[in-house]
């Protein structure tokens, strides 16, 4: 199997003669023509060797001269093993050039999610659409749970079609949505201050060594009430007053809380009384293969990362315990979706110290916890982290430096694909993965079309068959409500 990656002009004539004849035709004689033009001029196709079909292995030799060439057909696609996968994760439709082949490309979802996925492209090339499609196709699978930190509130579908409309959600409540401004039936995003530990602040706010030590000292002395103690200016030995004032200000700003009179006023999502079980609830639901969407559109970036950090730490610790207890095998893989991944995985951030996301990137796969990082700027992520992200879905990228960062860390050789990546149209992508035999071109369907197609399926139409039954069901449903 060969893949064409470039087209060139070829000719039996010398370049000088070609230029001379072309110039004469343009300027003097419009009837001028090449002699035996079909034989003398042609298009050269530059192809690379993907695999040897008969032996079903990576190809290490070139086909012979005069070998027959034909287009890929459906039988050949069986080699991709997409349809036989136990835990398929849909990535997109197979693509040949701009032509879409009616074949869903899937990879082993359980492994791919645990070994991290990077989605990378310039603005407007379809990152969100791709993520939506992946999340949608994953909703009815029982091998994984996904946590999405959604800074643009675009996945749930608050005011438009979205994951909430998945038939599985209507039957099994598979999508759990947390928001500062919840819509009926969804959960208000409230997290109790007691859930926060000093380690959760790594990578969230910048702290000097003295400030960091002060936080730890407060935590040691006041345990889960350490933030309240800082806000109330409780005493602690061995720290300069200025340090304590600064950490109070930083925490107050980050958490949107303040101490007035004798009580703590909470204005944001962090609360002194509410939200005691939020983190635990999220972990519990994700273990039931659900998709948790956390709308972070109305909170600061720092707060969003803190929320992600809290949940991710809890999940990783839980899964570590499961491994020790021998229970990990029965647990679904958990994947955490982070937009603008360099905010937590960028070189600059990590130079200041490791955080939970870099820990997951390095060792999460051993505990079935992975990341789906989304970024326009993969070059900001250190190579060590990029190399750990075993599946990369590359959409169109204009900037050379970003393409090179991806190409250099890809699971397959993409050294010839630089131009290809630059010219990918909206929704077109190349997938490189340890779970694919070769870097595969795909086209991602338009998310709204996917939803509409699914909703038109008859099996999910739950309309009542007749009005009598409907009335009966309604009456039975509301026993206990007296007329009045």
């Amino acid at each position, binding site marked *: 199997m060969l893949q064409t990656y470039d087209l060139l002009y070829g000719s039996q004539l010398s370049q000088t003669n070609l230029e001379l004849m072309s110039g004469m035709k343009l300027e003097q004689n419009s009837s001028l023509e090449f002699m035996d033009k079909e034989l003398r001029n042609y298009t050269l196709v530059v192809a690379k060797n993907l695999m040897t079909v008969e032996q079903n292995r990576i190809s290490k030799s070139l086909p012979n001269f005069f070998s027959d060439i034909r287009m890929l057909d459906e039988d050949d696609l069986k080699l991709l093993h997409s349809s036989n996968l136990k835990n398929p994760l849909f990535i997109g439709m197979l693509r040949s050039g701009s032509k879409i082949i009616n074949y869903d490309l899937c990879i082993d979802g359980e492994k791919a999610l645990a070994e991290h996925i990077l989605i990378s492209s310039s603005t407007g090339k379809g990152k969100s659409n791709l993520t939506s499609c992946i999340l949608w196709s994953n909703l009815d699978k029982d091998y994984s749970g996904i946590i999405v930190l959604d800074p643009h509130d675009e996945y749930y579908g608050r005011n438009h079609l979205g994951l909430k409309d998945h038939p599985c959600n209507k039957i099994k409540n598979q999508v759990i949505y947390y928001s500062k*401004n*919840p*819509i*009926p*039936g*969804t*959960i*208000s995003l*409230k997290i109790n201050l007691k859930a926060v530990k000093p380690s959760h602040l790594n990578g969230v706010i910048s702290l000097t060594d003295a400030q960091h030590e002060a936080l730890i000292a407060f935590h040691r002395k006041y345990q889960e009430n350490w933030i309240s103690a800082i806000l109330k200016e409780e005493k602690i030995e061995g720290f300069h007053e200025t340090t304590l004032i600064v950490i109070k200000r930083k925490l107050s700003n980050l958490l949107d809380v303040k101490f007035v009179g004798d009580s703590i006023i909470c204005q944001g999502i962090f609360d002194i*009384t*509410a*939200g*005691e*079980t*939020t983190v*635990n*609830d999220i972990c*519990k639901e994700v273990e039931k293969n659900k998709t948790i969407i956390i709308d972070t559109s109305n909170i600061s970036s720092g707060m969003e990362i803190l929320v992600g950090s809290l949940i991710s730490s809890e999940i990783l610790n839980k899964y570590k315990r499961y491994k020790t207890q021998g229970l990990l095998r029965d647990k679904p893989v958990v994947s955490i979706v982070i937009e603008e991944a360099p905010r937590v995985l960028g070189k600059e951030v990590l130079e200041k110290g490791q955080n939970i996301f870099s820990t997951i990137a390095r060792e999460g796969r051993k505990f079935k916890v992975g990341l789906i990082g989304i970024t326009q700027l993969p070059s900001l992520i250190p190579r060590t982290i990029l190399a750990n992200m075993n599946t990369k879905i590359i959409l169109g990228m204009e900037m050379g430096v970003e393409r090179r960062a991806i190409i250099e860390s890809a699971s397959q050789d993409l050294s010839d694909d630089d131009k290809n990546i630059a010219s990918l149209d909206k929704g077109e992508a190349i997938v490189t993965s340890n779970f694919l035999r070769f870097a595969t071109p795909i086209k991602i369907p338009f998310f709204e079309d996917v939803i509409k197609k699914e909703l038109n399926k008859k099996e999910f139409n739950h309309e009542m068959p007749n009005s009598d039954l*409907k*009335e009966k069901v*309604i*009456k039975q*449903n*509301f*026993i*206990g*409500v*007296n*007329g*009045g």
Partner: protein
Amino acid sequence: MKFAHMADAHIGSWREPKLKEASLQAFMKAVNICFEENVDFILISGDLFNTSLPVIDQLKEVVKKLKQIKEKNILVYVIPGSHDFSPSGKTMLDVLENAGLLINVVKGKVDEETGKLILNFSINEKTGAKITGMLGKKGMLEKKFYESLNTDNLEQEEGFKIFMFHTSLTELKPKDLAEMDSAPISLLPKGFNYYAGGHVHIIRKEKIEGYGLIVYPGPLFPNNFKEIEELKHGGFYIWDEGKIEYYGIPLYNVVSIIVDCHHKSPQEVRKELLTKMDNLDENNLNKTIITLRLRGVLRDGKITDIALNEIIERLYEKGVYFVMKNTTKLTTKEFEEVKLSLEKSHDTEDALIKEHLSKSNMSEFLVNVIGSNEGNNNCDDDSISEEKFDENEFIKEIMNTLDLEKQEGERIIDFEQRIKENIKKKIDL
């Protein structure tokens, strides 16, 4: 406007007569406080009774009190809770409502076009307060009601509005009730001035953006060991022109004794308990409930070696009103070390019996237990130790005897008697 908000009286919940009486008294006392405070009306957010059809004795007392309330021109608004709601409609609350003693505010109709539930307001004429609410059902089945609730008419209504609910709210759930089924706050209609909650036995008031004050008053009297230990007593809230105050109902002093038995011998635990007992304040013991919680893994010996019942007996001799014990998290090292990997239940039983027999002396046990059984002892120490019997079989026979099921139509008292007789026959050998 001044109103009281109480919930979860659970009248009739306790088995022990002393505590059963306490939950009734808590309700009586709460109403008396309402009289003293001159409230305009009373809200009861579910589970006034522990069952939909409470026993006559307690019901009689509650009806008397409700009649007193009515005579003082105070209206009582209730919603059925998960305990006193009945899907068949046969609930005492209906009877009390028909007798004009209370008003169930869960009233409305179903819009047959949309299938949506439309709730009506009950208006308190004295104050103009508009009250509505949603019943509570077991297993959070009321969630479907909320999902079908038309909130538009409720939110558009003007005036001072109260929404009564008997549901655990996800965002306000305490950590130790994390496993409890719950519904998000967003299911409640927005814009009410006061959300009178029940069901979760916590004392909490919280202001959530878009909603008014959301309040859980907790139970009127603690409803289980843990609640007695932690809450000590129940209570309720009184709302007075925007100010809200909690009124505790301390019927008894509660002294909670917790002993960490980890790595201790039964004798050491016993000594510790006796020391704590000696340090008890001698005053008001007849008004004191003591909770004893023992937890951890004993270093050696058996739990029975602590002789907890004897200690409890001593406490009663000192005049303590009521003593409760909890040893669910107490175990011994000997039992902890039994590890099995057998699949069939009888194999597991066999192995467990053998494992424990190797660590204890059954003959000694028989001497201690049966030998001390007054008036029913036809064997002495020697006869037991000389007697040769299959200990394994004996234990299995005892287990089988205890495994009998109640026959259809058999009264509980007869069933208990039958079991006792059978056990007696076995142990008499």
